[in-house]
Every structure is written in C-alpha cells, then in structure tokens.
C-alpha cells in the first residue's frame, strides 16, 4: 500500500548489474529458508482455499452426484434471508463483544500495569480463563445457567432477585448477554496483556511533566495514555473483530442457536448448511463470502492504523 515509494530511492554506490546479481543469490537462499513455511501455507491454506472456491461453483452434496452450477450458489446466497440475518446478528455480537472486551481489558490493564504487592496474583487470576478452551468454558456456562440444575438461577432466587426459577437462556436478551459476558470473562485477560504491554511502553516522564503542568487524572488518561497505546488498541481491535465475526462454539454449545434461531452466527449457518443440510457447495460459497467480508474489514482497520502512522 505504501512502501512502494522507498523502492525508487537509490541505494548507495553499488552498480545496477552487481546489485541484480547479488540480489538473485540472496533470493534463492531466502526461498530455501522460508520453504517449510511456504509449504505449510500452501498445503493448509492455499490448497483448501482454492478447493473451497472450486466447490462453491458446484452443487456438491455430502453424498451423491456433484454437478457444476457456475455462480448458482452465489445467486442463491444473495436471496438467502437467513444468512444475511445470521450475518446481521454476528455484527451485532461483534460490536458488543468488542466494546466489552476492550473496555474490560483496558480497565484490567490499568489496574495491573504498575508493580505493587500481590500484583502477580491478580495478573494470573485475570489471565487464567484465557487458557480454558472455548468448548470447555461454554459447557461450564451451559451448566451454570441451567435453570433446574445450575447455579445462577437458584442463587438469584436465594438472594431474592427473582421470585420463581428464571431461565436465563430462554429469552434473546438474557441469553445473548449470558454468552457475551462469558466471552468477556474468558477472553478479556488476553486483551489485558496486549494493552498492558502498550501501557508499560509509555515513558513515565510524560506523566511527570503533565503532572507538573497541573493535568488531572482524566486529562492525563485522555491526552497521554490513550494516544500512546493506540497501536496496541488497534491490534486488539483487529483481533477482537476478526475473532468475534467467526464466533461459533459458544452459541452452538450454550444456546444451539436459540431461542428460535435468534443467535445463529454466520459460521453457525455455514456449519448447518454443510453438515446438517449436507450442502457442501453452498457452504463453500458462504465461506468465500464471509472470507471476503473479513478481508475488507481487516484492510479497513489496517489502513486506519497505517494512515495515522504516516501522519505522525
């Protein structure tokens, strides 16, 4: 995107002919070094990607005859209300999950940033849920939120918050927030680490100077802390948006897409089309579209990071 300008800049006194020869030799060695990595990328990314694209142009049932249909799947997809609805829900979830993750992650990072007695315990405690698998965490919360045999409903009743057993997973809002809060509990420790490293890179002189100039905590946070951890924030943002757009496990395990399919995510819909309806070709087409959407989203975010950088 940028960077192309630097290629035109002359690179010291080497003559053009020698430069080319030297470069070529270096290139060969370089390719050799990265060959294992390239092999991995080709086998596990490029080949499946090309195969997915190829499958998306077919009526490809899990069992039975495969038939070329050109862009038929993409046309069907355009009119597939349920996919667009699932995508809409995924965006809704991404927005709230990202806000929650960054806010809680930043708050935790501010709390554990400075060394003080017992801080090791807090850092470990906040990071611990990150090492739990998503499926295990989901199963744990599925049990905790079970109205008959779980924990939340009886506790709420015991505390007098609800008069009768309350089924957390039965209505959209309660179910959605149960899952989203679970995700924030599980993943915010990871964002805490990213943001903490950003915070620790800020020289303390800045704060001292500001303090001498009479800046209060709010001003120091807004005008020193936030601008200087922007790069960590953008990294966290990209990771959170990409991860949330691909959400599947938690909604599959805790809610099975319920209540009444209101929490079907895009990946869930792809899974359903491929392995419940056995339409692999259509599932591939959906995957390609989701990939394109994610690519655009990531490019936009990277662009944002880059343009701000250049201005500096």
């Amino acid at each position, binding site marked *: 995107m940028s960077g192309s300008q630097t290629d035109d800049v002359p690179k010291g006194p080497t003559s053009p002919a020698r430069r080319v020869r030297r470069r070529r030799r270096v290139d060969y060695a370089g390719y050799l070094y990265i060959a294992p990595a390239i092999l991995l990328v080709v086998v596990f990314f490029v080949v499946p990607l090309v195969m997915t694209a190829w499958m998306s142009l077919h009526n490809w049932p899990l069992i039975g005859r495969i038939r070329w249909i050109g862009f038929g799947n993409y046309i069907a997809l355009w009119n597939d209300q349920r996919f667009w609805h699932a995508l809409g829900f995924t965006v809704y979830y991404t927005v709230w999950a990202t806000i929650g993750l960054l806010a809680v992650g930043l708050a935790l990072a501010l709390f554990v940033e400075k060394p003080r007695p017992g801080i090791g315990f807090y850092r470990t405690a906040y990071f611990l849920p990150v090492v739990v698998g998503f499926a295990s965490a989901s199963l744990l919360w599925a049990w905790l939120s079970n*109205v008959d045999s779980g924990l939340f409903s009886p506790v709420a009743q015991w505390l007098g918050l609800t008069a009768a057993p309350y089924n957390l997973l039965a209505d959209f809002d309660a179910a959605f927030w149960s899952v989203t809060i679970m995700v924030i509990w599980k993943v915010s420790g990871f964002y805490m680490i990213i943001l903490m490293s950003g915070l620790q890179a800020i020289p303390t002189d800045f704060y001292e100077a500001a303090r001498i100039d009479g800046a209060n905590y709010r001003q120091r946070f807004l005008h020193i802390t936030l601008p200087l951890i922007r790069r960590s924030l953008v990294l966290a943002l990209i990771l959170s948006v990409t991860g949330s757009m691909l959400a599947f496990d938690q909604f599959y395990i805790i809610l099975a897409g319920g209540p009444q399919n209101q929490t079907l995510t895009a990946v869930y819909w792809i899974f359903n089309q491929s392995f419940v309806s056995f339409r692999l070709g259509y599932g591939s087409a959906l995957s390609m579209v989701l990939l394109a959407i994610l690519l655009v989203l990531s490019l936009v975010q990277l662009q944002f990071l880059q343009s701000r950088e250049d201005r500096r």
Partner: protein
Amino acid sequence: MKRLTLLAAVTAAALASAAPALADSFTLWVRADGSTFMPKIVDAFNASHQTKAELQIVPNAELVPKYAVAAASGNAPDALSLDLIYTPSFAAAGQLEDMTDLAKSLPYYASLSQAHLSVGTFEGHIYGVPFSADSSVLIWNKDLFKQAGLDPEKGPTTWAEIRADAEKVKKLGPDIYGYYFSGNCGGCNIFTFTPLIWASGGDIFSADGKTAKLDSPQMRDAVAFYQSMVKDGLVPAGSRTDTGSNFFAAFATGKIGIAPSGAFAIGALNTQYPNLHYGVTFLPGKTGGWSSFAGGDNFVVTKGTKKLALIKEFLEFAYSLPGQTLLAKYGSLPIRSDIAKEALAGLDSRYLVAAEAMAKGKTPYSVVFNDLINSANGPWNTTLNKVFFADAAAIEPALKECDATMQSIIDAAK
C-alpha cells in the same frame, strides 16, 4: 475454514480406518447408539460362522459425514446400520444397493417391521431392511403416583388423564413436577410428540413426504395441551432450553411424574436406576387410542459391494430367533413381529408394551428429514419451541408459517 478443518479431520479418520479386508469378511459400520447390541451380535455371528463381520462404531453425529467421505474415496463399508430416517436421502443420492430381491426372498418378509420397510423403500425399490428398533412410549413414576394418591399400576390413557395425574403429582412439592419434555429438541419431539397427533387421527406430512401439513386441528390441540401444562407450572422451567441432554435424565431424577420416552429407557433405567419404580404405557390420543414412533436402524448396503451373499448370511442370523433374542437382551426391540414374544420371553414385561408399540408404530418419510426435523435450527424444532412456551393465539400463525418454511425446504430438494 472451520468447515474445511472438520472435513480434513474426517478424511484423516476415514483413511486411518481403512484396514485390509479378509476374503470372506465384510465391513460394517454402526452409529454409537448401537454400541451395546451390535458388538454382541457380531461376536456371536463371527463365533459361529466361516464368514466374519468387521464392525466399526462411529459417533452418531459423524456417521453421515464420515460415510460420505469414505464413499467418495471408495472406502465405504460394505454394509451400514443406518438411522432409518436417513434411508430415503441415502437412496435418493444413489448410494445404496437395491435389496428388493434379498428382502422378498426371506420367508418371514411379511412380518418384518413395516415402519422400517416403508422408509427403506424409495421409488418402489427396497434399499433398507429393518435391523434394530426403538419405539416411543409413555413412562410414569409409580412412587410419585402412590404418594399423590393415584393408582400406581394405572398409567394415563388420554390427554385429560395425563393432565389430571400431572396436577396431582405437582402438588407433592415445589421441586417435583408432573410432566417433562425436552422443549428444544427436534429429535425428541418427533419421537414422542407426533404420536400424540397420530393417535388423534392427524399427521404432519402427506404419505409421500412431499407436502407439509402441520397446521391441522389435531396438531393445534396437541400444542395447546402441552402449552397449558407449561403455563400451569406442571413442567420444569429447564424444559424450554433442553436440547435433549435431559431427555432421559430428567425422569431418572425421580422428581418427574410422567414423561414421554422410548423403549431404550427401560434398559437404561433398569441398569442405572434400579430403585426407581416406573410403569410403561402407550402414548395416547386426545380421547383415547394410541400410537408410537417406530425408530431404530435400517440395514443398508453400499452400492457396488461384492459381499452381498456374506451380508445376507449375517442378516439371516440377526433375523433368526437366537439373533432376535440376543438383540432384545441388549436393548433393541425385535423387528420380526411373528417371533417378537418368544424373543422377549424372560425379559422385563414392560418390553412387551414397547414391542407392541413398535409393531403399530409409524415413521415419517422425508428425504430432507434432517433439515426439517432433527436440526436444532430447523422449522420443526424452532416452531415447537416457540408455540409450547407462548400463548394460545400464537399457535395457528406459527404452524402456518412452519408449513410454508417446510414446504420451501422440501421443494428446494426436488
């Protein structure tokens, strides 16, 4: 990407399992539900025959994808014990060998389970023959009935009786409930809820499975019946979000008066909860009569296999009286009505109710059964989950909408 990872995993599993087959042996797969009775019958067959069956057990949810991958690479098993509702879609995909001649050559062909054969038949040819069986029944807790002042030996025979009994049981305590069903489980409800409609004279599909007709007076009545029990607190709150994990477990806690269940529960309750006293009866219609969902596995053969003679030998062993007795002992109901009583002799008498239910049981026919019914996100489950826990005014529009959605899925598959 996730999908591809899954596919890759399945492929790897299929490749790893492709063992060289012996000359006079054939390969056979079964889903995990059959992991009790299938190894027993295979062992008994292998011990007494020159021919050997090589059995592999596959997790329920992976059976279809795994078979599909194996078939694509030419490594499909010779035979497969397949959840019978999948027989039409497998046959429609041209994956199965025509078994019409084999089936009709059996002297007891006429007494084989009609429900299995009806879904095993596609365009006039038989592609699947009955193998294992499980019928839906109603079970009640005799201890709770006694405490509630009801006759512990008499199960309900109409919807009104179910309701009246459930009300009395509910009065026993705040954590005891009259009735239980898994309110967010399409598979559970096709198994136990549709018989209530069938027994009342209704149905959910046309006979050829090509027209959805859920919106019928019988269906509306049955939904209203469940709805009123939910509204009056006879059903635990967890029912609404139970995706099937409590289908058996809820009744086993001993705090549920009445629950629709299956023949499988008899064996499971007897072995795991020997102190729970329960009775088994038929799933009744609104004002009497009864019906049942005939479930279980059909035995199908992969198209192009050269082992048909060996497979026939195995089937004849499974269909014989010793075979049927062995299957019954390990939890599968007999699928031959002419020797069912003999095969069940000496077993818990409650099996006889389930066997009778099986003999008169029905199985809905559809090539897109998974999409329509079993999928947690399909129209059947979504609609029932909505109407069971809504109010009376919601029933008719929801059923009409469900019919339209189902019809569009059926039409798209043509």
